[in-house]
């Protein structure tokens, strides 16, 4: 009866002990063909599994669909290195498999020559990697210098990190918004970034790599999209309880759309008319403490600005102009915006653990009113 290779090898140590005088005249090992087949099957199974999964999923934060020159440059560099690394890996693994198949112990094999080394091959496998690395180093260093610092003439957007949302401030236009960074497509925009609490890390993989937002310091990230489009972003540095729910969107729009957007954002909010549900919502907003954290710029009625008093929450003046909220995590996939808002207003910390927006114990009616008010705040 033929035993499997594994079982045979398993016996080896035992035999060695039992017959210490001649440890190496054990039975012949399983044929190398069998082992090769095992390797081949394993590889095939893995490849098949990989292909099937790669194709079915469409990832919104993928690094493989660069949509701007910076991400494109990184992508090109990655693939160059990827193929070199794959080549090196293939070399090592093929060498390993050849060694395993060719030099596995066989019956009657001679004892190996006691080779201690070979200066020539050792120099070769020191020098060749060094040359490969030097070749990779050149484009790397060039890209580092080209991609790190902004063009001083570029339009600036200040991005301020908070637990757990991004605030965007456009100093040239006096526009303050949150979670959705609107940029004109086709030209460079410079994100000037800092944080108000802990370290965050802004990452819009289609447009560029990551850059920290550090409290007390300013960092830069150049963003540029070839075409208009919506791009996902995520905080990539662990920043506390709801790190995983700190996301953002970059919305690249045409120049004319950008100008329109800026003009709209610069307008103060129009207060809802008395007697409407939205007006009731405005009363809730003012009277239930929302304004302690949220700014809401209004004109008329004395031209007052409802200022933030304590915590720094998102400016809600044009809340309805933003298609996502709560750190760009709501509404969830397939969720209706009003349902999401209702869920969020009812108990923010249950949606976003640790949220600084407390559960204000609003009644269902108050929530409905608030939604009507917020959804009119374009």
């Amino acid at each position: 009866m033929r035993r499997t290779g594994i079982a045979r090898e398993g016996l080896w140590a035992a035999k060695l002990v039992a017959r210490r005088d001649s440890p190496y005249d054990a039975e012949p090992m399983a044929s190398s063909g069998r082992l090769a087949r095992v390797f081949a099957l394993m590889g095939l199974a893995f490849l098949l599994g990989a292909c099937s999964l790669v194709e079915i999923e469409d990832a919104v934060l993928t690094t493989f669909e660069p949509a701007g020159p910076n991400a494109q440059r990184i992508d090109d560099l990655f693939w160059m290195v990827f193929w070199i690394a794959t080549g090196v890996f293939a070399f090592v693994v093929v060498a390993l498999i050849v060694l395993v198949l060719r030099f596995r112990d066989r019956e009657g094999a001679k004892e190996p020559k006691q080779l201690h080394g070979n200066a020539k091959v050792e120099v070769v496998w020191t020098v060749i990697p060094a040359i490969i690395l030097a070749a990779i180093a050149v484009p790397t260093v060039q890209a580092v210098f080209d991609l790190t610092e902004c063009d001083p003439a570029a339009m600036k957007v200040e991005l301020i990190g908070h637990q757990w949302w991004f605030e965007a401030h456009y100093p040239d236009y006096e526009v303050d918004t949150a979670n959705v960074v609107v940029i004109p497509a086709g030209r460079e925009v410079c994100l000037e970034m800092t944080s108000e609490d802990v370290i965050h890390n802004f990452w819009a993989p289609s447009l560029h790599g990551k850059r920290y937002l550090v409290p007390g310091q300013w960092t830069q990230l150049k963003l540029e999209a070839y075409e208009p489009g919506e791009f996902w972003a995520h905080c990539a540095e662990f920043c506390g309880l709801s790190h995983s729910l700190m996301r953002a969107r970059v919305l690249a729009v045409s120049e004319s759309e950008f100008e329109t957007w800026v003009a709209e954002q610069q307008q103060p909010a129009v207060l809802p008319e008395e007697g409407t549900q939205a007006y009731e919502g405005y009363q809730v907003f003012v009277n239930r403490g929302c304004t302690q954290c949220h700014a809401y710029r209004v004109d008329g009625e004395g031209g007052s600005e409802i200022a933030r008093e304590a915590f720094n929450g998102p400016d809600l003046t044009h809340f309805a102009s933003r298609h996502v909220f709560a750190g760009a995590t709501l509404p969830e996939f397939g969720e209706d915006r009003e349902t999401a808002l209702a869920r969020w207003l009812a108990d923010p910390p249950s949606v976003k653990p640790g949220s600084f927006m407390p559960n204000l114990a609003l009644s269902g009616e108050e929530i409905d009113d608030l939604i009507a008010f917020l959804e009119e705040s374009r």
Partner: protein
Amino acid sequence: MTATAERPATTIFRRPRSKTGIWSWITTVDHKRIGIMYGYAAFAFFIIGGLEAILLRVQLSQANAEFLTAGAYNALFTMHGTTMIFLFVMPASAAFMNYLLPLLVGARDVAFPRLNALSWWVFFFGAIFLYSTFFFGTSLPPIGPDAIPGNLPDGGGPGSFNWISGSPDGGWFGYQPNAGPFYSPGTAMDYWAGGLQILGLSSLISAVNFIVTTFNMRAKGMRLMRLPVFAWMTTVTAFLLLFSLPIIAVALFMVTIDRQFGSLFFAATAGGDPILWQHLFWLFGHPEVYILILPAMGIVSEVFPVFSRKPLFGYSAVVFAGAAIAFLGFGVWAHHMFASGITPVAQAAFGLATMTIAIPTGIKIFNWLGTMWGGRLRFTTPMLFAIGFIAMFTIGGLSGVTHSIVPSDWQQTDTYYIVAHFHYVIFGGAVFGLFAGLYYWFPKYSGRMLDEKLGKWHFWLQFIGFNLTFAPMHWLGLQGMVRRTWKYAPEMGLEGWNQAVTAGAVIIAISILIFMWNWARSRRRGRVAGMDPWDARTIEWMTPNPTPEHNFSEPLEITKLDHFWHLKYDEDEEGRPRRREDADAMLEHLEDVGNNPREPIHLPSSSFFPFLVGLGVPIIFYGIIYHTSIAGKALIVGGILLILASCVGWGIEPVDEPHYGDHDEEHGEEPVAEEGELVDD
């Protein structure tokens, strides 16, 4: 009897003499017993850290899952990382170093046996201290630097905090200010900082001990360039520890002072610099990576020659490459911070420095392949793990090279690509290497063999499970899965691969269960190993299995690299080994004289004091955490007094040694009779 032994002090401080039972383990200074304790403790934490990982994986197996709360998730990944690095891989390496270093250099113990016991007990109590956070620690929501007490949020509601989140939740890297006093209030991160501080102290003590052991305790003729590679890598690792641990010690003290006394080193709002913490942490943290991997590299460098029946290819190149990796490891720390906004010049410099590490690493890999070239390869379990090490570590090394491509790293850093990378290095590398060592040296510990059949099941399941777990993480990271993420949205398109990853984690768990079963069974009922079960090359196999307490009975004189091999084999005209006719007789003689030494052997005496000094250390740290209360102040004073008193005892306790003359009179007769019989043999 000498005069000193009659001083009154001896009656007050009698050295403990238990040879069995709990007290013998508490008071032991035997490097092998200390190694065994390190090993079991490390394995226990491997299981705990593994269970933490399984919980994390269950949470991630579905988009928007609610299996764990955010607080519990953050606590579990913090403790998973901290446990696996500081409580598993480091002490597991320490287990091998302790057990083997004296055997490999031809000594009867390390240079400072009581200090060795101290490093173990400091580790043990430090680990308990760290894990006691689950019972005593508190983890509270951030208050923010400008918080107004009346406006404090409800802290995520009662559902967000539970028993698990009483543990540290600021990440094993403890980035400031998130892990600082304002954003991680509560005591949990104090337990983390204090625990790491204590564990670092333990490693620092070991490092000094191992360095002195290597340089001063070698047998006659054991020149440095005849040392087994594992002894070399132990020494290199000890130097890494010696130079890197003081950095993290300083940084952790800064954190502790920040947290306890409001010093604001890292608080940006007060002019502190949170990036400074990252520099200090990684200036330790990167050498730490090599602290984890170099011992495993040493282990496989022992395994390949034995199962290829050839000497290590390019021995000196392998040794120097190890030293070069360690040296370069101090100059690359900022590659963990390429996204932090450091200047392009700094990024380029650290990127290039990182690339250079690939060269000595490549030298090692190619030399192991060269060792196998032309050999007679025996695919025993240790050899399989060593081969697995090469393949997996190569992947980890190459993905490491992609991080040195700085712009590429901007995309990869803080994603699962990094998680994949370092698990290929630390699990695929260090852990595979450690398992190779466990199977290889198990006979030295138990006198028996681990079962080869179960061993192969273990290897293949672990190999498949490992790759199923960590290979898809490369893809997940590049598809935008950020690290330390409690939840991901369904439209991120990450669910399918995450399910594969979770399945892989379960397979790893099964493979570990097989290993535990194998270990438990083989320890009592495994095949008896006898002398030299693997036809090995290095001198630790010149002692019987299990290793007798005194290691070597007779003084050694080392004449060559792979001394033991050359005692068994000479070479024929073609340079092929030919077993000496007297080899078996020599082995029998070694076994006999090893178990029945001809002369009484002087061994270091047991002592209570390392245990007591070690016990004092966490007491002080408990006191620091609760320093505002009277009890805390009492603990600090009590701990200091305990340590001081124990140090005095340590200093004046006498050598409890039946002197050579006495020993002969008391116990000498029987061995002498046997000696006469066997020397003729």
